[in-house]
Every structure is written in C-alpha cells, then in structure tokens.
C-alpha cells in the first residue's frame, strides 16, 4: 500500500512538471527538448517493462520505432490513409512483427536473445534504406500532417500536450500493470523462471506478450515522432538509437517506472547541455555513463530510493 502512495506521489509530481513546462520554457528550443524527452520516456517505459521487469533484452527497439515512423510517412503519402489509421497500423505492425519473431527468439537465452533482437533491428533498418521508391531510402521522406477532428496538428504546443498526455497515461498504466496478476507473473519469471512455471505461468506467452507490448509502445512513439518532426529518416531505426534507449533504461534504473522517466530526461537533455563543450561532448557523455555504472549500478532512481529508505529506518 505504501508502494501505491509513493507511486501516486510520483505521478502527481510528473503531472505538475508536465503542466508547468510550457509556461516556464523560455523559448521553443526547450519545448522541443521537452517533447523529444517525453517521446523517449514512453519508449523507455515500454522497454523497461521488457528488460527491467520481465528480465529480457532487446537490442533492436529502434527498429520498431522506425516501423511506426515510416508507417506514418508511407501510408498517407502513397496510399492516402488517414494519419490516425496509419499511426494505428504502424503500432500494430510493430506488435505483429514482434509477435511473429518472438516465439523463436524467446527459445534463445542470454546473449543469443541479444543477437536475435539486434539482427531484427538491423533488418528493419536495411529494408527502410533499400526500399527507396517507398521510403525515400537513406534520405528519408516528409510526413503529412496529422489531422484530428478536422484540425491539423502542427504546432509544437499541440504536440507537447499530446506527448504529455501519452506520457502520463503510460506511467499510470505501467504502474497499474506491475501491481496486478499479469505484472506479478511477468516479474516472477524474471525472479525465478522455474518458480513461475510451477505456479502456472506460461512463461513463453508472458515474454511474448511483454515484447509485443513494448514494441507497440515503440511503434506508436515512432509515429508521433514522424508527425511531430514532419520528416522521417532511417536513422530512427539505427542500432545507435536502440543503444541510447537501453542506456536510458539502465541509467534511470531497471524495473523502475520513474527511473525510466528520469533516464529519458537525463540522457535526452544531457547532450544538449554538453553541446557547449565543443568537441568534447561525446567524451563527457561517455564519462557520465561510466560514472553512473560505477556509482549507481542499479540506476539512479532505485539507488536513491534505497538510500532514502535506509535513512528513514
């Protein structure tokens, strides 16, 4: 129960921050940063369900983002789909691809699973780069504007509130999920797979379900990115992007909902803040990661929470 109260307080704080930012952001640069942070946070939440809570790995999540993003670009441009339908299709396609490859993938363990998801991401990337007549190839392509109820959604403010709402709903839903029979089964198969199996958890089904869910989160946010930026390029599906997302999970804290948000905030904002270092930003970025891993091996939020709890006792 105390857990639930802590969660609700956390949710209230994030809500307050989301509500205040547009009024205190000095210029559009910060609003843009906030939107991209929010998008990353939702993807990282989904990825953390898979990695931190269910104990699986994905090195190919950017592939699902790319799939969602290009669905939003290609389907309206070439086939005249409504952007909302394209967005739904992108998320479903990411989920479907995840579902199709999940069964064979989850027979593998450890680094084999990492290799298989890595390969999946690379394949999506190659397809996006090679199918130039549809995707614009390596150059990418423009994305038609999203229309909701006959209104074009084009301004940063509009996208800010959409992303903010998506983030809050995702946090709320993740917190609910973790503290439910489904969520306990998902965590239990991480804690002890054999124990989960003998109490009746069909572990393959749960792993597949979580993988599909997190792929759909990624696909959806890929679509949002596409419409917000107004342009997509295959770089969205790069391996480097997958690694960035993984880093956010690890730095913020595995198996921590608010850690996901904090990880996304730090690692989306950090490169911008370091940009003043002219040429040394990559080094500084790397140094921050290494220091995090050495001093906060469990991630920022879990480590701080544990320290706080110890002091209270």
């Amino acid at each position: 129960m105390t857990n639930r109260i802590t969660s609700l307080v956390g949710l209230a704080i994030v809500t307050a921050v989301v509500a205040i930012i547009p009024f205190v952001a000095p210029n559009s640069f910060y609003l843009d940063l906030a939107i991209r942070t929010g998008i990353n946070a939702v993807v990282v939440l989904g990825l953390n369900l898979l990695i931190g809570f269910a104990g699986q790995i994905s090195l190919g999540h950017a592939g699902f983002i790319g799939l969602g993003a290009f669905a939003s670009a290609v389907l309206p441009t070439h086939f005249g789909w409504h952007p909302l339908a394209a967005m739904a299709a992108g998320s479903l396609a990411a989920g479907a691809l995840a579902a199709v490859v999940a069964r064979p993938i989850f027979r593998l363990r450890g680094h084999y699973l990492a290799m298989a998801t890595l390969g999946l991401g690379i394949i999506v990337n190659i397809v996006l780069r090679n199918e130039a007549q549809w995707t614009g190839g390596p150059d990418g392509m423009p994305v038609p504007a999203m229309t909701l109820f006959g209104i074009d959604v084009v301004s940063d403010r509009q996208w800010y509130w959409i992303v903010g709402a998506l983030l809050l709903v995702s946090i709320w839903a993740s917190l609910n999920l973790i503290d439910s029979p489904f969520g306990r089964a998902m965590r239990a198969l991480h804690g002890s797979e054999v124990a989960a199996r003998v109490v009746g958890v069909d572990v393959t089904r749960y792993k597949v379900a979580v993988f599909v869910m997190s792929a759909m989160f990624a696909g959806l946010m890929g679509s949002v990115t596409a419409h917000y930026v107004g342009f997509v390029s295959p770089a969205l599906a790069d391996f480097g992007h997958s690694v960035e997302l993984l880093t956010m999970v690890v730095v913020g804290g595995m198996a921590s909902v608010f850690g996901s948000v904090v990880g996304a905030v730090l690692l989306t904002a950090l490169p911008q803040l370091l940009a003043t270092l002219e040429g040394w930003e990559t080094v500084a970025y790397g140094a921050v990661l290494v220091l995090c891993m050495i001093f906060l091996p469990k991630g920022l939020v879990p480590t701080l929470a544990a320290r706080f709890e110890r002091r209270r006792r």
Partner: protein
Amino acid sequence: MSLLEVVSLSKEFGGLKAVQDVGFAVEAGVVHSVIGPNGAGKTTLFNLITGVYTPTQGEIRLDGVDVAGRRPDQLAALGVARTFQNLQICMNMDACENVMVGAHLRLDRNVIRAALRWPGLVRRDRELREEAEALMAFVGLGDHVHARADGLSYGILKRLEIARALAARPRILFLDEPAAGLNPRETIEVGELVRRIAADGVTVVLVEHDMKMVMSLSDRILVMDYGRKLVEGTPDEVRRHPDVVAAYLGKHA
C-alpha cells in the same frame, strides 16, 4: 483410483540414468515420503512429475490420465504444486508478492484490465493480499508480511516457498527437503506444518533426509537408490527391510 500413479518412469541425462523404471502410487489424503541417499534421483523424480523435466520413458497418471510430458503450468492447473530443494524465490518481489504469485491461476490475468486498474481486478487483488498474509501466518511467517524477500533468512524463505505453493490451493504438494539447512527448532516447526497441511486435506509427497520427521509423518515411504525403487511400504515395513538397512539407513545409523 490413486490420485497419482507413476508407471516405469525413467530419465536419462546423456547416458546417466538418474531415474530408472520407477513405479509407485500415491493415494489422496496421505503423506507419502521419498527417501534415498544423495544422488538417488529424488529431485529428478519430482522434476519429472511436476513437468520441469520430460521423461525419457514411462507414464505419470493424475486421476488416471497420463500427463507425462505436459508443461509445469499445465500441471499446476491440474492441482500440482511444489517447493524446491535449492530455493527458488523471486528476490525482485516482496515476501507477500511471492506468495500472491502462487495464486496465479485463480486470478484475472488480463493485461488490459490490469493496465486500466479495473475495479473487480483490484478488489480481488486486495482480497488476495489478505489471503497471502493469512497463509504466511499459517506457515509461521506472520511477522514478515511486509518484508522484502532479499532480506529474509534461509529458514524463512524455505517456508515462504511452502506458502507460495499453498496459495495455489493444490491437491497434491511436492516438498523437496523442506527442513534442509534448518536448525532443530525450525525442523520441528516444519514437521508440524506438514502435519497441518496434510490435515487440511492436501496430499503431500515429501523428500526429506531427517529420518525422525519422515518416520513420524509418513503414511507410506518410497526408498530410492541409484535411480531405482528399492522398497515401498509403510514406515514400519521400510524400517525393517534388510535392503534399506544395508543401502541407506545402515550408513546413517
């Protein structure tokens, strides 16, 4: 018809015959123990019956239906539960949640209703938490209902596993050395606990090295040696059997 009937069951691990042609029957409502020296194949037998391993040969009948080769989660749905000789606790969950996950098959496992915090699901979960706390009290862990699993001692975690298995409301419960590594007082408490579980109508199959506990609790005993069934009978029959004295008790007594 027996609740559980095992017919010429075998398991090989690349040439090593861990279980060889073992057959026995467990009647509903009894405490049926399995004893034998280290490496005799007791844990392997449990792993076969609970679906963790697939048999090389043989039949496992629950209520007369052959269930050999079914997955553990499918067997759990038929009322099979177990604990592990080497602890299998989820250290990423608190103690009470470890027990709650035992009730997995009795709950609403829908992912959408879970994410939406569906009122019925939340209400059932709140009841379940109370049930789990009552179960923890039943196994003697009433003081630890709010504890994190990773801070509890070995003896306590052993009993936490029993509570988790009971949360499934099993018909037949397999306990693999529940008293191993416990101090004498804890061992007596676990013996008492097994007695109370059996009194509640749960059929218990028990692997245990503590002979005093086995002899006092068991209705029947299966003795294994080198993967084979040596003897099967009542505690008195087993105690007096010359092969048992030679192969097993002889080394200890």
